[in-house]
C-alpha cells in the first residue's frame, strides 16, 4: 500500500531519515517506535506529504504522494495540535472533516454516540477547541481521523496525554479497526500498547530503520531490552 523509495530527509546537514526501501502491506498495523529525534514524526510527515523529501519519494497505492492527491481520500491522520482548527467547537470540527468525506451531521452524531466511552463532557459542550485541555484536544484529533472509516490511519503518539480509561478504549478500538481491514501506522512511546496492537514493529534510530519485525509473544521483551539503560 505504502512504499518508500530511497527516501531521505536532511535538516541542515544532519540526516533525519534515511530509508532505502520499505513496503507497508494492506491491513498491516505498523507500530513505529524510537527515542525522541529518531525520525518517527519525519517519516509520518513524509507519508502525508507535509514536508518535502530531500531525496526519493513515497508512493501510496502506486501513486507518488507529492504528485497525486488521491491518497487523501482514504488516509485519516492526526499528528499534532496543528491538525486542529482552534476556533471551531469539536462538533463543528467533526462536521467539517466529516463533510469532506460525505458524512452528514447525523452520521457524525451516530459515530460520537458509539464512541461515548472515549469522551468526557467537554467534547460536546460548546467550547472552542483552543480552550480544551491537551488530552481532550488529542481526543478530538484522533476521533476526527477515525470517524469516516479511512482505509489508512496514521497517528503520532496517540496515547500521550490520555487518561488510563481512554488509553484502554483507544487500544481496543485500534485493534477492532485493524480487524476490520484498516491499515494503520501508529507511533508510540508506550511499548506495552504498541506491542499489543501491532502486527509489525519498525524501530527507528537516528533516522535509520534498525529493526523490522513481526510482532509476537516475545516482542515486548525484545523492545524493552533494546531500550533499557544499564
Amino acid at each position, binding site marked *: 500500500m505504502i512504499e518508500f523509495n530511497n527516501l531521505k530527509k536532511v535538516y541542515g546537514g544532519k540526516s533525519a531519515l534515511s530509508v532505502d526501501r520499505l513496503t507497508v502491506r494492506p491491513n498491516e498495523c505498523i507500530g513505529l517506535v524510537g527515542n525522541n529525534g529518531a525520525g518517527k514524526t519525519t517519516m509520518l510527515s513524509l507519508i502525508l506529504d507535509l*514536508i518535502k523529501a530531500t531525496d526519493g519519494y513515497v508512493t501510496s497505492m502506486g501513486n507518488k504522494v507529492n504528485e497525486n492527491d488521491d491518497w487523501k481520500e482514504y488516509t485519516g491522520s492526526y499528528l*499534532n495540535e496543528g491538525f*486542529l482548527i482552534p476556533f471551531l467547537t469539536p462538533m463543528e470540527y467533526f462536521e*467539517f472533516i466529516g*463533510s469532506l468525506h460525505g458524512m452528514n451531521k447525523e452520521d457524525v452524531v451516530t459515530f460520537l454516540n458509539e464512541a461515548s466511552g472515549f469522551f468526557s463532557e467537554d467534547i460536546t459542550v460548546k467550547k472552542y477547541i483552543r*480552550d480544551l485541555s491537551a488530552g481532550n484536544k488529542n481526543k478530538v484529533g484522533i476521533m476526527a481521523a477515525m470517524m469516516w472509516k479511512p482505509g489508512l490511519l496514521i497517528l503520532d503518539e496517540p496515547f500521550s496525554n490520555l487518561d488510563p480509561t481512554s488509553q484502554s478504549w483507544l487500544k481496543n478500538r485500534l485493534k477492532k479497526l485493524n480487524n476490520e481491514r484498516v491499515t494503520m501506522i501508529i507511533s508510540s512511546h508506550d511499548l506495552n500498547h504498541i506491542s499489543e496492537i501491532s502486527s509489525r514493529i519498525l524501530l527507528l534510530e537516528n533516522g535509520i530503520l534498525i529493526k523490522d519485525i513481526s510482532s509476537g509473544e516475545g516482542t515486548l521483551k525484545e523492545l524493552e531490552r533494546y531500550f533499557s539503560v544499564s
Partner: protein
Amino acid sequence: MILQKLLNHQWKEKVRSSFWQRSIWLNILLGILALYLILCVASIGFLADKILSEIYSDRNVVQAFSGLLFYYFSFDLMMRFLLQKVPVISMQPYLTLPIKRSTLIHYPLIKTIPGFFNLLALCLILPFYLKTVLPANPLMWSVVWIITVLSLIFINNFLAFLLKKYFAKRPLFIFIILALVGVIAWLDIKGNLNMTEWVASAFAFLESHPAYEIIPVLLALCSYEMAYIMLKRNSYIEEEKKRISKISPGFTFLSKYGETGLLMQNELRMIFRNKRPKSVVWLSIIFLFYGFIFYQPLEINKVFFLVFAGFFVTSSAGLMYGQYFFAWESSYLDVYLANRIVALNYLKAKYWLFFVLCSICYILTIPYALFGHNIALINFSLFIYNLGVTSFLYILFGTYSRSRIDLGKSQFMNYEGTGAAQWLSMIPVMGLPFIIYGLCALAGNANVSFYVLIALGGLGIIFNEHILILLTKIFYKNKYKMAVAFRKR
C-alpha cells in the same frame, strides 16, 4: 540580589522574544519613527512659546499651554490605551520562590515609569518648562506647575493600565471617548465651551493655593495604588478563570455551497472568532472614513490623492484580509494539507471572500461620489481592479508568506506575519494603478487609465477560474516552505 536577578530575567525575556521576531529592518524603521516623534515633540515644546503667542495673543503663554494640556493628555491616554503594554511579569514561575509577592508586583509597575509615552511627554514638557515657564515666573510657581504636570503624566501612565484591563474587550469605548473629546474640542474652538480656559484657570488656582497641590499628588499615588491592587488581584493563579469565549455565529448557510462554501465558512469563522482578524475588520471600518480626509476641496482636483483614497476606501476590508492570505491559517495549515481538500477550492474560497468583502466596502462608499464627479469613475475602476488583479496578486504573494500569525494576539503594534513578501507585495499591488495612470497621462489622455483598470479587472474576474488554477500550481510548489515556516513557533 533579587531585584537584580529579576531585571536580568526581564532583559533576557525581552531580548529573546518579540524584538528578534521582527526583522532587523523593521526594528530600525521603528527606531527611526520613534526618534522622529521625539524630535517633533521636543521641538514643539521648545517653540511652543512662539507658536502660542501668535495664536493666543490675548493670553499668557503658559496659561495657554496649560489649557491645551487637556487635549494632549486625552490624546496621550488614548494612545496609551491602544499601544501601551500592561505590565506583566509572568508570575507563575516566581510565585513559589522566596521572593516577596509585593516585590513581584511593584517591580513591573516601577518598570513602566521610564516608558516611551512618559519619555515623549517629558520631551514636550521639559523644553517648554526650561525655556518659558522657569524664567517668566517665581520659583514656587514653577515648582507647583511642574509637579502638577508630572503628576498628570504619572496618572495617565497607570490609568491607562486600568482602562486597558477593564475596557480592552470593548474597543467601542475608545471611539466613544474619541468622539467626546472631538466634540469638546469643536465646541472649544467655536467658543461655546472654553475647556482650555477652564483647565488654565484650574492651574492658576493651584498656583495661588499651593496647599491644594496635594490633590494632584494624591491622585497620582492613588493611580499607582489602584494599578498595584489590580496586578495583585491577578497574581493568584486560580483567579485565572478560563475565559470561555462566547460561541459566535457559525455561518452554516455556506455549507450548501460545496467544498468552497465549507472553506469560506471556516474563513469567516476565523475572522469573527479570533482577536486579531476581528480587530483588522474594525480597522477596515475606520478606513472607510478615509474619504472624508481625502475628499476635501483642496485635494479634490489632485487625481493622485483620489486614486490613493479610492484604492483603500473601496476595498479596505478585502485588502486587510488579503494581505495575510495563508498566514491567517498558519497555526492550522496542516489541516488543509493533510485532508481531502481540493486546492482549487481552497483558493476559490479565499478569492470569493475577498470579493464579498470588497463589494461590501464599495457599496458603503458609493455615496462618496457626491463629493466630486470623477470620484465615481475612479472608485469604480479601482474596485474592479482590486477584484480582478489585486486579489490574485495577494494570493500569489501569500504563497511566499514565511512567518506565523498568532490569531489570539491583538492587531495593534503586532508585526507577526509581516515578512519580505508582505512589504514587496505592496509595490505591484499599489504601484500598478499609478503606473498605468502615469503612462496614460504621458500618452495624452489620463482618463483612459481608469478604463484600462476596469478592463484589466474585468478580465481577471471573468477568467478567475483559469487564473486560480495557475495559482494552485504555484501554491503546490511553495506549500512546503510555507508550511515549514508556519510550524515554527
